[in-house]
């Protein structure tokens, strides 16, 4: 099954610590637009904030993109960013980041291309949907 991107499409520039708060808010909005429950919105906001913290701790700046993603009948939220800053991190720190993010989302993928990217996906499974 091929994955396709879908709305909403939101981005946040991460340049200083204030942007972590904006990123958290944007994640909640994106998750809300897709129909995630309140607790899942909080979880996704935490994941995006954790990614933003990693960018700033690496002494870098970056843009975090959030978009809907569809795989067959399944939809979810994808969070991604270019991660040139990964080269400056030790393999231990990358593993630590991976482990931390894995506790909050379903998929964490670090793609070693040029530039490298980090991609997180959290699927909108029935228990995660807002109750009507």
């Amino acid at each position, binding site marked *: 099954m091929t994955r396709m991107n879908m709305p909403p499409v939101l981005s946040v520039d991460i340049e200083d610590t204030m942007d972590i*708060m904006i990123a*958290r*808010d944007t994640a*909640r909005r994106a998750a809300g637009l897709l129909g995630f429950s*309140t*607790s899942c919105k*909080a*979880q996704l906001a*935490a994941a995006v*904030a954790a990614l933003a913290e990693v960018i700033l701790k690496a002494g870098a700046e970056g843009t975090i993109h959030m978009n809907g993603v569809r795989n067959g009948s399944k939809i979810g939220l994808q969070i991604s960013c270019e991660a040139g800053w990964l080269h400056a991190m030790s393999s231990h720190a990358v593993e630590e980041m991976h482990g931390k993010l894995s506790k909050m989302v379903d998929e964490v993928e670090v793609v070693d291309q040029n530039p490298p990217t980090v991609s997180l996906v959290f699927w909108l499974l029935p228990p995660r949907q807002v109750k009507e």
Partner: protein
Amino acid sequence: MALEVLLVEDSKTQAHQIRETLESVGLVVRVAYDGPDGIREAVNAPPALVVLDVKLPTMDGYQVCRRLKMHPATRNIPIIMLTEKTSAEATMTGLNAGADDYIPKDIFATEHLITSLQELGLLE
């Protein structure tokens, strides 16, 4: 009849601000200033919602949340944690303790709190 919210918050200043927000949308607010008091209040007169701080004297908000979610009288009451502890670990600890939402006390807190109240069916 207006829905009642139990606010567990040790800071009187913050309790006052949160109370004003909740009352502005038509909710009735009771305040407990520490964890054990919050649990007693919730068990004795179950509210429609608990808004819970994390940093509390005697017993932290995570413990309060766990206990409320285990007690038969309170396990179905939605709990919103509203806190200054914003790390991913703190958020996951709150959600794993059973919180229905975990809202950082930042400039978006009021907006997120009201959205959360709507989603939990406590506001039209």
